[in-house]
C-alpha cells in the first residue's frame, strides 16, 4: 500500500484515543446523573395574540405564580423544577394542534394546559388522548372537551362547563329580569354550538321559550340584522355567547338600535378588552365567572394576590388583575397537577392520569377540592362555584346581586 494511503493511526496515538473514549464514557455516565435534576416541562397552548390575548396572559400568570411557589418549596419528584413552555395558538385550531404536537414531541412536556378557545381545545383533545398526555383545560368551556367519550380520558378541566353554565345563565335571566322568552346570540363555531345545545335543553327544562337562535362570525361588525330578527320574534332578553371583539359589536349594535334588552353573557367577553371595544353598553352586561379577586378573600386568595403583586409590579390591586378567571383557574389547576405528579412518582402520562384521582384534599383558591376529579367527573368546578358579575366603566369586574 502506498505510504500516503496508509492509516495514520500508529501505536503512539492509541493512548490519546483511549483517553478520549474514557472521557466520553465518563460524560455519558455523568449526564445520566444530571438527568435526575432535569426540569419537568409543563406546556401551555393558548391565545397569546389577537382579541383574547388578555386571556393567554392571565393564564400564564396563574401558572407562573403557582410554578414559582412550587419550585420555591423544592419542586417535584425530589428536586426537579417545573418549567413553563408556552405556544401561541392565535385562536386558530390548526395552529393549536401544531403547537400541541410540538410541545408533546419536541419539548416532551409532562402535561399540557389549554386556553380560552373551545375550538382549539376540541382539536387538541384527540391528540392528548392518543399520545396519553394529560391535557388540562383552564378556560375553554365546551362540554365536549372533557366529556369526549374516550376511555381512558386524559382530559381534565378546572373551569366552567357549558352545559352547567347554560342552566345558570337562564336561571339568572329569569330570576333577575323576569325573562320568559330569551333570544340567543351565538358565535358561529363549535363553542357556540356547544352552548346552543346546552341552552336549548336548559330552556326546555326550565319552561322558557327561546325566541330565536341567531349566529354571527368573529369578524362581523354589524349584528343589527340578527338582533332585529330576535326583537321581531318577541325576545325579552339576550343570552350572548362570544369572545370580546364580536360581543362588543353585538353590544354596539344594540346601542345603535336603541333596544334596551338585558344581556346575560357567557364569559368569553372577559378574555379581551370588552369595555374598551364595546362602549357604554358594555357595563350593562351580566356575565359568569368562577372567581373574583374583589371582596373578602380566603387565605389562599390573599396569598395569590400577594404573589401576583410581587411577580407583576403593574398589579397593585384586584382591579389590575386582568381576565381573573384565567389566573384563578390556572393557579388551582397547576397546584392540583403538581400534587398528581408527586403522587404518581413519575412524569409518565398514564401514571399522572391515574394520580389525578388520588390528589386528595386541596384547599385551593376557588374552593376546597376533595377530590378534584373522579373517574366519572373530570370537571373540578360545578354550578356552586360560579358568580355573576359585570364590568364597571373602568373595566373592573365586580359581582352583581342575584345569583
Amino acid at each position: 500500500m502506498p505510504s500516503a494511503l496508509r492509516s495514520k493511526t500508529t501505536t503512539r496515538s492509541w493512548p490519546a484515543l483511549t483517553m478520549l473514549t474514557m472521557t466520553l464514557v465518563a460524560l455519558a455516565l455523568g449526564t445520566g446523573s444530571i438527568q435526575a435534576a432535569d426540569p419537568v416541562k409543563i406546556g401551555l397552548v393558548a391565545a397569546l395574540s389577537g382579541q383574547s390575548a388578555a386571556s393567554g396572559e392571565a393564564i400564564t400568570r396563574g401558572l407562573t405564580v403557582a410554578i414559582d411557589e412550587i419550585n420555591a418549596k423544592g419542586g417535584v419528584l425530589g428536586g426537579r423544577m417545573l418549567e413553563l413552555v408556552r405556544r401561541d395558538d392565535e385562536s386558530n385550531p390548526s395552529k393549536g394542534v401544531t403547537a400541541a404536537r410540538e410541545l408533546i414531541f419536541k419539548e416532551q412536556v409532562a402535561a399540557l394546559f389549554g386556553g380560552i378557545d373551545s375550538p382549539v381545545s376540541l382539536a387538541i383533545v384527540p391528540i392528548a388522548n392518543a399520545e396519553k398526555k394529560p391535557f388540562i383545560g383552564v378556560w375553554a368551556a365546551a362540554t365536549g372537551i372533557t366529556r369526549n367519550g374516550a376511555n381512558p380520558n386524559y382530559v381534565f378541566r378546572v373551569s366552567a362547563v357549558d352545559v352547567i353554565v347554560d342552566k345558570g345563565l337562564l336561571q339568572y335571566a329569569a330570576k333577575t329580569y323576569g325573562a320568559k322568552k330569551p333570544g340567543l346570540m351565538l358565535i358561529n363555531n363549535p363553542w357556540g354550538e356547544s352552548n346552543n345545545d346546552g341552552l336549548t335543553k336548559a330552556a326546555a327544562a326550565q319552561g322558557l321559550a327561546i325566541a330565536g337562535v341567531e349566529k354571527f362570525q368573529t369578524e362581523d361588525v354589524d349584528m343589527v340584522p340578527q338582533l332585529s330578527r330576535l326583537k321581531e320574534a318577541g325576545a325579552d332578553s339576550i343570552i350572548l355567547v362570544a369572545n370580546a371583539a364580536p360581543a362588543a359589536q353585538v353590544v354596539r349594535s344594540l346601542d345603535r338600535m336603541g333596544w334596551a334588552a338585558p344581556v346575560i353573557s357567557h364569559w368569553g367577553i372577559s378574555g379581551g378588552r370588552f369595555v374598551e371595544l364595546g362602549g357604554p353598553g358594555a357595563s350593562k352586561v351580566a356575565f359568569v365567572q368562577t372567581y373574583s379577586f374583589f371582596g373578602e378573600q380566603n387565605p389562599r386568595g390573599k396569598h395569590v394576590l400577594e404573589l401576583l403583586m410581587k411577580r407583576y409590579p403593574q398589579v397593585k390591586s384586584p382591579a389590575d388583575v386582568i381576565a381573573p378567571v384565567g389566573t384563578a383557574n390556572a393557579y388551582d389547576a397547576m397546584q392540583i397537577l403538581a400534587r398528581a405528579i408527586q403522587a404518581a412518582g413519575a412524569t409518565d402520562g398514564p401514571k399522572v392520569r391515574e394520580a389525578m384521582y388520588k390528589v386528595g384534599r386541596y384547599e385551593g383558591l376557588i374552593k376546597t377540592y376533595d377530590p378534584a376529579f373522579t373517574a366519572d367527573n373530570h370537571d373540578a368546578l360545578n354550578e356552586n362555584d360560579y358568580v355573576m358579575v359585570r364590568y364597571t366603566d373602568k373595566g373592573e369586574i365586580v359581582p352583581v346581586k342575584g345569583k
Partner: protein
Amino acid sequence: MLILSALITGVATGSMYGLLALGFHVTWAVSRTVNFAQGSSMMLGAVLLYGLAVTHGWPGAVAVAVTLGLCGAYGLAIERCVVRPFVARRSDAWLMATVAVGIVLDNVALFTFGKEPRGMPSPLTRHTVQVLGAGVYPLHLLIPAVGLGIAAALALVTRYTVYGKALLAVVQSPQAARLIGVRVETATSAAYVLSTIFAGVAGVLIAPLVTVSAGMGWVFGIKAFAAAILGGLDSAWGVVVAGILFGLTEALVTTLLGSTYTNILSFGIVIPALALMPHGLLGRAGAQRV
C-alpha cells in the same frame, strides 16, 4: 327597518372601499402602477391616529392632520424606494415589491401597536340618531360625504386644472409629457402621496366603527382592489361607484342570508360583472383626449 340599516352600513363600508380604490386609480392613471398593499396604508392611518390621539392624547384635529401627513410621506417612500427602481428597469416586479412592503408594515405594526385589537373612541359614535327606525351614527353620514367629496374634488382637479391635466397627460405618453414640460417623476410621486392619503383618510374614518388592529387592512385592501377592477381602473367615478355597490351588496347579503355567505357572494358577483363589462362599469377601451 332591516334593509335601511343594511343600506346605511353598506354605503359607509362601500365608501371606504371607494376611497381605497381611488388610490389605486390615481396611481394607475398616472403611472400604470399601483400600491397593491393599499389595505396596509389604511391600517397605517388607523394605527397612527390611535397612537397619537388615544395613546398620546393629542387633540383630534392635530392628530388627524399629522396622521395624514405621515401617510403621505409613506406613499412618497413607496414610490421612490419600491416602485421607481423596478419601473426604471422596465420590470413588473413593483407589484410584488409593494405587496412585500405591505406585509412588512403589517408586521411592524404588530410589534409596535401590539397584538390585540383596540377600540377607537370618537365623538361621532357616541350617540345615535334614529332615522325611520334604524340607528345611525353621525359617522355613518360623514363617511359617504367625505368619500364622494374626495372623488368629486379629484374629478374637478383633473379636468379643470393644469396640474390635473398634466397628471393625465403623463400616462398618455411620458415622452410627450416631458417635452411639454411636465415632470413625470413628480407627477408619479404626487399620485402615490395622494393614494396613501386617501387610504389614511379611509382608515381614520372607519376606525371608530370597527376595531383597530395590525391586520385590519388586509381584507379591506383586497375588496377595494376588486371594486377598482370592477369599476374600471381608469375611471375615478367608476371605482367609487363600484366600491359603494360592493359595500351595499355585502351588507344586503349579510342581512338577508347571513354573514357566512357574504364573502362568497360579494366576490362571486364580481366575476360575471367583469364578464359582461370587461373594462369595468365606467371604464372604456382606447385613448382619451386630454
